[in-house]
């Protein structure tokens, strides 16, 4: 096949590693890479290039850290106590679960207080 000679064999081997790495990286970013984009109003979870979950912080009342069957801590957002919830896969993005949970709690409480203020303003 033409790879019998020492130089060609070395060339093929030295090219196949970075090529495999690049293809693997491309496939990973295309299909499995998880990204969480958020601001003070809403969040969006992307897996690969596709948006998986999105929502507005003010729809949620409670936040918890939920550990899955493999011991990975994710964030769980509840619309009501023990009601419907949405999971943010924070273990896949490499943030500290406690620090991120505290940040989300701050966002939720500020979103809730601003919605209460709006209700008061409407009532007035």
């Amino acid at each position, binding site marked *: 096949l033409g790879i019998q000679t020492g130089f060609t064999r070395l060339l093929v081997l030295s090219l196949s590693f970075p090529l495999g790495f690049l293809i693997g990286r491309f496939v990973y970013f295309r299909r499995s890479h998880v990204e969480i984009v958020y601001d003070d109003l809403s969040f969006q979870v992307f897996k690969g290039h596709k948006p998986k979950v999105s929502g507005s912080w003010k729809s949620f009342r*409670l936040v918890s*850290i*939920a*550990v*899955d069957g*493999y011991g990975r801590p994710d964030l769980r957002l509840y619309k009501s106590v023990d009601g419907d919830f949405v999971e943010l896969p924070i273990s896949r993005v490499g943030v500290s679960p406690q620090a991120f*949970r505290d940040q989300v709690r701050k966002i939720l409480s500020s979103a809730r207080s601003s919605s209460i203020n709006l209700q008061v303003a409407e009532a007035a």
Partner: protein
Amino acid sequence: MKSAVDVIERELIRGRARWVADLTEFFRDYKVMDTTFNLYARGKTRNKGLFLSRFFASTVLPNYAVSLLCADESGRGALTTEKIRQRADVVFRIISEENLRWAWLIILTDFRLTPTVVSFIERYDRRELGIGIANVSSRQAVFSNNQVGRSIRSRLGLEKLLGGLTHGEAN
């Protein structure tokens, strides 16, 4: 700066309680009626594991719902038996509402534990509730004299956890 509750939660997330219970969900500042617990963790006695441990767990271990509640009374005056009793009553309410088999109650304080409190806890023997009281400054800890209470020391290692706190973390 990390508080003692943060450290306990971090260790529980890492699976420190797994020999007794697989705690899978953690809430902070969990409010029940008028009482707020700094940490509320819930889970089951059957852990997941992989292959052999999963098979062992599913065939041998019972799947009871259990929970851990932790309250930090630091900076709120001396801990009294009345305060402990009030907390215990709320935990019993949670046990009956959520159909739990048992629960751990950990109360942290920065006041010296009085002999009355120590005696009250050491004589506490209701099966469903294990109580552990710890002083975050002196690392003194006392546990209820029932199986669930003793497991706070032996399995959860509360004293070791608090002993590992640096002065800054203990705030």
